[in-house]
C-alpha cells in the first residue's frame, strides 16, 4: 500500500549554479528507504519539501491519502499539520531545556507524556533526564532527538544524515537503535545518507540521487553490487602530490581519511594535477580483507 506519493520540481541554488530537483516516486507504508547521493545532490531539499519547510515550484505530494501539497489546486498544508518526525543533522535539541523538557515539549497530550520514561529507559538515557543538551554526548543527543521525533507518533519519519557527526562506535550503536525504533513503531522512514555501510545496514530500498534527479532505485544490492562494483576494487580519491621518480611517477592520493601512494606512467597522469579527482581501481589481484582490532582506529 502506498504511503507517500510525490512528484515535484524545486529550484535549488548550488555552488554549480541553478539546478532543478525533479522527482517522482512512491514509497510504500512501513518501508525504510534511503536517499543516497553526494552533498548538493538535493537530498536535504527533498526532505525539507516533504516536511513543508520549503515549497516546491510545482508538484503534488500525498501522504497517507491526504494531499499535503498541490500547486494546481493551491493546497499547501502547514508544517504543523503534517505530522512529520524530523531529525536534523545537527540534532536541533533546544539548548535551554533539559532532556526531559525537550521530550515534554514534543508531547501533545498527557498520555504521551506518560511514555517518556519508557522511551528514556529503552534508549539507555536513564540518569540523563535532567541534563541540558550541551552536557551529553553527540550520540546521546541524537537518541533524544530520535525519541523527540517519534514520541508523538508521526505519520512519517525523516532523517537528515543524523549520524554523520558521530564517531564510528556511537554511529554503529545508533544505527541499531534506529532499526529497533523502526521495528517497534513501523513508521514509514526516509533516511538521507552518503555512507554506504549505513545504507546496506538500514534500508531495504534505496533511491540514488544525482544533480536533482533520481538515477537508480532498488535494493542496495541491486543498486550498488550489480551496477556499480562488478566485483572490482575501486575507490575515488584526490591527488595530493605527484613526484617524479625515474621513468615513473609516484602519485600520493587521499582516499577517504587515508593517504596512499600509487605508481603511474607519464601517460596515465597526463592532464592530472594536484587536486584532481580520480578513480583508483585494481583489476589483476584480489584485495585482502583484514579485521581491524578495536582501539586501533
Amino acid at each position, binding site marked *: 500500500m502506498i504511503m507517500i506519493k510525490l512528484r515535484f520540481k524545486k529550484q535549488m541554488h548550488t555552488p554549480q549554479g541553478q539546478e532543478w530537483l525533479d522527482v517522482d516516486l512512491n514509497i510504500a507504508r512501513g518501508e525504510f528507504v534511503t536517499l543516497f547521493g553526494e552533498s548538493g545532490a538535493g537530498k536535504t531539499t527533498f526532505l525539507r519539501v516533504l*516536511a513543508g*519547510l520549503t515549497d516546491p515550484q510545482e508538484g503534488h505530494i500525498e501522504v497517507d491519502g491526504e494531499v499535503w501539497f498541490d500547486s494546481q489546486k493551491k493546497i499547501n498544508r502547514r*508544517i*504543523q*499539520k503534517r*505530522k*512529520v*518526525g*524530523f531529525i*536534523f543533522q*545537527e540534532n*536541533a535539541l*533546544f*539548548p*535551554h531545556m533539559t532532556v526531559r523538557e525537550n521530550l515534554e*515539549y*514534543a508531547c*501533545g497530550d498527557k498520555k504521551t507524556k506518560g511514555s517518556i520514561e519508557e522511551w528514556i529507559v529503552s534508549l539507555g538515557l536513564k540518569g540523563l533526564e535532567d541534563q541540558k543538551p550541551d552536557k551529553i554526548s553527540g550520540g546521546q543527543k541524537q537518541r533524544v532527538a530520535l525519541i*523527540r*521525533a517519534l514520541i*508523538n507518533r508521526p505519520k512519517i519519519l525523516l532523517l537528515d544524515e543524523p549520524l554523520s557527526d558521530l564517531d564510528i562506535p556511537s554511529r554503529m550503536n545508533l544505527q541499531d537503535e534506529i532499526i529497533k525504533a523502526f521495528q517497534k513503531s513501523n513508521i514509514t522512514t526516509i533516511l538521507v545518507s552518503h555512507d554506504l555501510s549505513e545504507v546496506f545496514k538500514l534500508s531495504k530500498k534505496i533511491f540514488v540521487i544525482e544533480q536533482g534527479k533520481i538515477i537508480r532505485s532498488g535494493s542496495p544490492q541491486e543498486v550498488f553490487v550489480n551496477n556499480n562494483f562488478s566485483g572490482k576494487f575501486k575507490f575515488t580519491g584526490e591527488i595530493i602530490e605527484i613526484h617524479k621518480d625515474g621513468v615513473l611517477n609516484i602519485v600520493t592520493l587521499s582516499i577517504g581519511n587515508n593517504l596512499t601512494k600509487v605508481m603511474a606512467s607519464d601517460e596515465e597522469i597526463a592532464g592530472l594535477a594536484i587536486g584532481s579527482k580520480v578513480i583508483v581501481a585494481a583489476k589483476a589481484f584480489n584485495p585482502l580483507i583484514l579485521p581491524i582490532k578495536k582501539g586501533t582506529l
Partner: protein
Amino acid sequence: MQPLFLTFQLAVIVTAILFVLGVPLAYWIVFSKNRFKYIIETLVSMPLVLPPTVIGFYLLVVFSPTNFLGHFLETYLGVRVVFSFTGLVIGSVIFSLPFMVNPIKAGLESFPLTLMEASYCLGKSSWETLRRVILPNIKPALLTGLVMAFAHTIGEFGVVLMIGGNIPGETRLASIAIYNEVEALNYDTAGLYALLLVSISFSILLVFYYLNRKSLKIF
C-alpha cells in the same frame, strides 16, 4: 526629589511599552518576507540619526490641539498629549525605539533557524515557538534591549523638553530640572541631581555588564 522620581517612573513605563512593542516588531523585521520591510527598518532607526529636537518638533506639531490628531484626541478621548506626561511617554517610546528593537533584531538574526523548524515539525505554532523556544534563548539580547531603552530614556533631554516643557510634577524630569537649576544659578541643586543621575545610571550599566559577563546563567 520629584524630578528624579518622575524620570524613573517614565523610564519604567516606556521600557515596558517598548518591550511589548519591540519583540513583535523585531520579529516581523527579521522573519517577514515583505519586500518593503526595509522601510519600517529605516523608520525604526531614524531616532538614532536625527537631532532629538526634530522629533520633538514634529510630535509637537502632530499632537498640537490646533491640528487634526491633537484636536481629535482632546475632544473625543479627553487626552492631551502636548505638555503632559502622556506626551513624554509617546515621545520617549518613539525616541528609544531603536534601542529596544535593534538588539532584539540582532538576537533573532543569530538564532539558529533549525531550532525554529524543529519546533514547527513538533506541531508548535509560531507564537508558541517564539514564547517557549526563541525568547528563552535570546535572553542576553532581550536584556540588552531592556537596559538600553531604560538608560536611554533616563538620559533624554531634547525630545522631552520639546513635547513636555517644564511643568513641575508633570513633565519636569531630572535632566530638565538640572538645566532649570543651572539657569537659575542653583549649582548645588543641579549638582545633586547630576550626581544622582550619574550614580544611578552607572549602577544600572555596571550590573548589566556584570550579568552579561556571567553569560546570564542566573536567569
